[in-house]
């Protein structure tokens, strides 16, 4: 990987009234990687993402996305990114096909619903309403809407929260496919096992600061080098492996 930065964040600060959510964050996301923002609730992950996505104004700092300045070229950035919001809904009373048509209009591109739904294996749900989908299907549909404008970067805010193990693993496959097709992925998650297998690099955010940024392997090696040992020795498999082994790898829709 050429390590060409596609997103550069320098000293980002975001204040809400009397509360400082982000206190001077700097990091780079490289083109073609899956970059994870990790950290506890309220650490400032979502705020940071929303500022980069042009959904919130920053208090100070500098951000460039795919060569465009967030302050002067928000519109160009919006055309180049795909955004999946935490807990966002979709226009009421419309089925998935109609929602894809709506988003094609909003982005000003010509995409057929079938073409987009195929990418996330939802063609058989074309006539279904968003609210009637299972958790995993909802997330896959959200991801389909982020891909409509052939974005250079997509942002996924906790896409696997609340999903069962099968749906989660299948979503990982989907995210890897998107990355392999050349799209940079920025993701937030609370699940460290997920970050470990999915992300090329991760940044730990806590209390509005970045407290570490590296590849998952490096972080783990560093910790082990300090003499850290798990209280309980891990076995060759964990309970999730048992779950998957017993219930199968196929999609669970329900």
């Amino acid at each position, binding site marked *: 990987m050429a390590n060409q930065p596609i997103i550069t964040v320098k000293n980002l600060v975001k204040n809400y009234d009397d509360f400082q959510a982000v206190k001077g964050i700097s990091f780079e996301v490289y083109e073609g990687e899956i970059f994870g923002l990790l950290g506890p609730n309220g650490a400032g992950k979502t705020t940071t993402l929303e500022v980069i*996505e*042009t*959904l919130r104004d920053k208090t100070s700092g500098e951000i460039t996305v795919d060569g465009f300045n967030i302050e002067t070229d928000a*519109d160009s950035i*919006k*055309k*180049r*990114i795909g*955004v999946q*919001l935490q*807990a*966002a*809904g*979709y*226009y*009421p*009373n*419309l089925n998935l096909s*109609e*929602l894809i*048509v*709506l*988003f*094609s*209009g*909003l*982005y*000003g*591109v010509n995409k057929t619903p079938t073409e987009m739904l195929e990418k996330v294996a939802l063609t058989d749900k074309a006539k279904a309403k968003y609210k009637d989908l299972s958790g995993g299907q909802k997330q896959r549909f959200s991801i389909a*809407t982020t891909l409509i*404008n*052939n974005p250079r970067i997509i942002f996924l805010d906790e896409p696997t929260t609340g999903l069962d193990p099968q749906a989660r693993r299948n979503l990982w496959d989907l995210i890897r496919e998107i990355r392999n097709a050349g799209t940079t992925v920025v993701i937030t998650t609370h699940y460290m096992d997920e970050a470990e297998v999915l992300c090329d690099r991760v940044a730990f955010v806590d209390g509005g600061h970045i407290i570490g940024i590296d590849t998952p392997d490096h972080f783990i090696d560093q910790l082990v080098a300090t003499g850290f040992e798990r209280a309980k020795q891990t076995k060759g498999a964990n309970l999730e492996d048992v779950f998957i082994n017993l219930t199968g790898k196929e999609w669970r829709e329900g």
Partner: protein
Amino acid sequence: MNQNYSNTRATLAIAKASFRSILRSPSAVVFSLAFPLIFILVFANIGGGGVAVDVGVAKGADTLSPVYKALKKVTVINLIKDQTADEMAKNLSKGSIDAIIDIKTNTGDLTIYPPLSSLPQKAAYMVNVQYTTSSSKGPILKSVITNVLNEINETYRKMSMATTPPQAAELKEATVSGRAYKYIDFILPGQLGFSLLSSGVFGTAFVFISLRLTLVIKRFFATPVKRYSIVLGEAIARIVFSLLGALFIIMVGHYAFGFTLIHGIVTVLNMLVLCAIGLIIFMGFGFTVSGIAKNESTVPPLSNIITLPQFLLSGTFFSVTAFPKWLQYVSNALPLTHLNNAMRKVAFEGAGLGDVTHQLFILLLWGIGVYAVAVKTFKWE
């Protein structure tokens, strides 16, 4: 990547999505179509309840006569004195007044004695009533006048102690022909106005608050769409839906209940233009409510505060003239009153939009006021 981004295309995409959504929302269809039609069906068959008979008093009528005084005491009769003879004649043929009454004293001609039974007696008062076919309230007035005159004649008979008294007053009646003003002509524009009011206020408020709370608008903002496209797209969808609804109500009214459309299609088009103007103003209330409301459950009470008074006071079911004077001032301040009045003028009197500039002006003032508030209170997130 994307060559030319089209705001028009984005706006139309939202309009199309919103239109589909409205069509599939049962409450929108029920409020905009079913309710007005049910009200029309019920009230068109009941006919006018709570009537006020508007009676023009001819210039020079003897307002000191006992006949006038007695009529004045009758509550269903609304005596109008501030119109010229010309205006009165016109209003009579249009049916906006129900009759014209003239009371004359037969001065000096009253022969008190000797009463010669063979000669026709001259009555003390002549009551001249003109009715109109434009109004169905003639018979009400007729029976009122007959009662009043009988009473006066009875008193007069006792006073004169005569066995075969001369008549104190005699009644002469004539009916001018005009268009029949049916109750449907009154109730339909009112229902149309109310349908627009509820669609504009409830519909707009619900859509925007739910789009805001479910983060649909936030997701839209992550696309290159402009804010005005979102508002405009929603407005286009609602206007198209409401105009189709209005057209449907007018057609049902016309073909099933004989709703009067003087200049046919031109009248319909004028009415639709009025509908659009009214709806745009009412949507301003909707935007305001969506901004003030904290969540979806606070939308109905806030919307009712706006719609209910207008429902009752704006001449939706009964004429504003049936209210006491002080209440009429309130009525005449409400936008729906003026929309209803303009609509009735256009539909029944065949007025063009140029003839209802007074009403349009008041609606314009409301529009400016409402949108000034809406801009201040509207919330995107």
